[in-house]
């Protein structure tokens, strides 16, 4: 039951129309309808929320205002703060970030015989990978193929992705699932071993593999266990604050900062992989986020300062179904799997207003339109929201489906007295994913030699919108890929010489020349949520 009686009354309207709504097959929008909807209601189109960069390799490009402040912010160190000739760590492959991509890269680099090391500002596994609920795509069923997966991903991303990256994503997908399964990741299967797969928004085949609604957690904890079994060093609570280059301008390590003692440390490496994840905690346009605490775009800053280019940094994914109510879980992710299993989106009148499995950008824009222009949202003290009719799942698929397939969702709402088996839930878009990022080629190389990027921090794989289940896939496929290529490159690279942090002063001068004087410490490392006393 909702603590606010008005919501219980409104939920009855939804219940009354459930049978009719369940039978309904809403039509999908035409390409033109989608374009108009996005241009009018998607946050990416709000021009006054973006700033044009005036310094660095993407000068002239627009990025979200909060990101611009960090990209053109102030380094946390000066070159004189550390002695680069006395490294605290020496390794072949330095991996910055302990999420799904970082862990996958570490395992593959280790497998290739390279000395790998992970540094992470929180703990290994404190990452968006851990929170991915719905699943991971792979075209492994007889009615599906990597080519069909290609078309879904490329079209869903508005034909903007880099073709060679989409190719790698879809053709390496089945192998990624097999690799995970052989590491011991449990997938939902039928008794004969057939994968239980469902649709996601924008998929034309049912290719979403899952481990209940703990898909990312199951993958991440297994990868973490494997990293530890292999004895790969993991330096936790230690953030990278600057990339170190060698005398030839190649990446050669990073300056690290102990998050608790603030001690600065030097890691020297033959190759460096940035796998720092996303940026939800920058709260673009004031949105809540489904992201973990450390999602502050650090990798974009690290790369940008040494000259790595950004691609599509102006496109963000607002997950259509963030929690709209109650306050304690406001903005938390309600997995798309809820809609994959048959729940529909419903407005205050109890009417279905769209097909529930359009792509995420279209669905988010449609919900925003319902709550603004059309005035059909449900008002709470947190703002407007629409209903996601979760009881419809059991109405269609039988009792017990919710507990078996989406136990995390049932638990999350259950803690606040809302039984999602019997009551619909309120949802509104939440900042979820950075579609763009560091521009990479299909070997995960950035434009800076010996500097690689993988996972959410990289851009170009998903174009301007990512499909559900292609992110978990991305972190595994490109995480492994980065580990393989960075290890191979490290083998043919001599011990780096002439380590330098000259780029800091160079970038400062460029900022000064552009008339920017910023005191914003960058990278941000963690958001500032502590209430300041009056």
């Amino acid at each position, binding site marked *: 039951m909702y603590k606010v009686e008005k919501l219980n009354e409104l939920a009855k309207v939804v219940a009354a129309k459930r049978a009719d709504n369940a039978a309904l097959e809403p039509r999908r929008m035409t390409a033109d309808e989608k374009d108009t909807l996005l241009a009018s209601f998607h946050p990416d189109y709000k021009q006054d929320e973006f700033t044009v960069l005036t310094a660095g390799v993407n000068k002239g490009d627009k990025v979200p205002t909060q990101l611009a402040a960090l990209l053109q912010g102030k380094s946390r160190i000066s070159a004189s703060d550390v002695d680069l000739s006395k490294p605290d760590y020496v390794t072949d492959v330095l991996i910055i970030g302990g999420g799904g991509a970082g862990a996958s890269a570490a395992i593959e680099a280790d497998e290739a015989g390279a000395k790998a090391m992970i540094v992470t500002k*929180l703990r290994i*596994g*404190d990452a968006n990978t*851990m929170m991915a609920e719905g699943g991971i795509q*792979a*075209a*492994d069923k*007889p009615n599906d*193929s990597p080519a069909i997966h290609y078309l879904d991903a*490329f*079209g869903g991303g508005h*034909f903007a992705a880099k*073709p*060679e990256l989409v190719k790698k994503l879809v*053709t*390496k997908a*089945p*192998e990624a699932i*097999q690799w995970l*399964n052989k*590491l*011991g990741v*449990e*997938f939902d*299967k*039928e008794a004969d*071993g*057939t*994968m239980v797969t469902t*649709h996601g928004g924008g998929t*034309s085949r*049912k290719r979403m593999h899952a*481990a*209940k609604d*703990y898909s*990312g*957690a*199951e993958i991440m*904890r*297994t990868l973490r266990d494997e990293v*530890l*079994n292999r*004895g790969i060093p993991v330096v936790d*609570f230690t953030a990278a604050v600057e990339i170190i280059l060698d005398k030839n301008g190649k990446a050669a390590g990073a300056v690290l900062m102990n*998050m*608790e003692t603030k001690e600065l440390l030097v890691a020297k490496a033959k190759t460096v992989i940035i796998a720092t994840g996303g940026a939800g905690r920058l709260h673009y346009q004031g949105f809540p986020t489904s992201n*973990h*605490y450390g999602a502050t775009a650090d990798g974009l800053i690290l790369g940008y300062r040494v000259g790595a280019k950004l691609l599509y940094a102006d496109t963000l994914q607002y997950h259509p179904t963030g929690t709209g109510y109650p*306050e*304690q*879980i406001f903005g*938390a*992710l309600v997995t798309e799997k809820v809609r994959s299993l048959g729940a529909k989106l419903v407005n205050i009148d109890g009417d279905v207003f769209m097909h529930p499995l359009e792509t995420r950008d279209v669905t988010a824009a449609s919900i925003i339109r319902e709550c603004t222009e059309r005035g059909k949202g449900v008002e709470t003290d947190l703002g407007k929201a629409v209903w996601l009719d979760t009881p419809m799942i059991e109405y269609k698929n039988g009792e017990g489906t919710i507990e078996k397939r989406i*136990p995390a969702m049932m*638990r999350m709402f259950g803690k606040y007295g809302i039984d999602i088996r019997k009551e619909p839930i309120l949802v509104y878009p939440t900042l979820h994913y950075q579609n763009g990022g560091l521009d990479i080629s299909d070997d995960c190389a950035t434009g800076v030699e010996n500097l690689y990027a993988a996972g959410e921090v990289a851009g170009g794989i998903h174009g301007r919108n990512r499909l559900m289940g292609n992110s978990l896939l991305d972190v595994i496929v490109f995480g492994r890929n980065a580990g393989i290529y960075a290890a191979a490159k490290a083998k043919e690279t001599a011990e780096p010489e002439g380590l330098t942090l000259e780029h800091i002063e160079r970038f400062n001068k460029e900022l000064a020349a552009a008339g920017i004087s910023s005191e914003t410490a960058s990278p941000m490392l*963690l958001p500032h*949520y*502590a*209430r*300041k006393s009056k």
Partner: protein
Amino acid sequence: MDNMINVYLFGKKYQVPAGLTIMTAMEYAGYELVRGCGCRNGFCGACATIYRIKGESQLHGCLACQTEVQENMYVATLPFFPLEKKIYNIEDIKPDQQVMMQLYPEIYACVGCNACTKACTQELNVMQYIAYAQRGEYDKCAEESFDCVMCGVCSSRCPAGISHPQVAMLARRLNGKYIAPECGHLNDRVNEVNEGIFDEKIKELMTKSVDDIEEIKAMYNSREIEK
């Protein structure tokens, strides 16, 4: 100010608005969290916490990000708990009873006090999954422990010194790799990809992606969608 309540963070009293979680109450009180905060959504186990309501005997385990503050709540976070993780090569072990005896023999010292289950932040039947592990029933142990976030509160309460989350982790990997049925269509597809049977079709799409965007748009907009 709306409804304020008293909470005791590490014994020190603070007044915070009712309705906050323990985590947001700490931030309201002025804490800049570094440890004890991860996903903030109940999946990572970073914010393991124990609490007791003043005047009551029962000690509770919870996740700070998922638990609402209560009046007179005494809170201590448990940002790190020394679990014992054994090292093994997943390729070399077998899903028999021996492996658990070798790696985690302390599970057989379980005294059946059920403190682990009572402390579980995910309301799992922890003692039951340890019993399955003792018997080598790893599929059941995997299922019973599936929602574990490895926060370690169970282990902090265990008189036998068992690292329950690590035992369950091993059981799930054994189940996922060796016990759960193998997937035929997955293996077939990996072989097909390696044989190159999709190469031509993919190449065609890649070429169109660059040279003939209108055609690929038409293909996308008219593609057949599985019901």
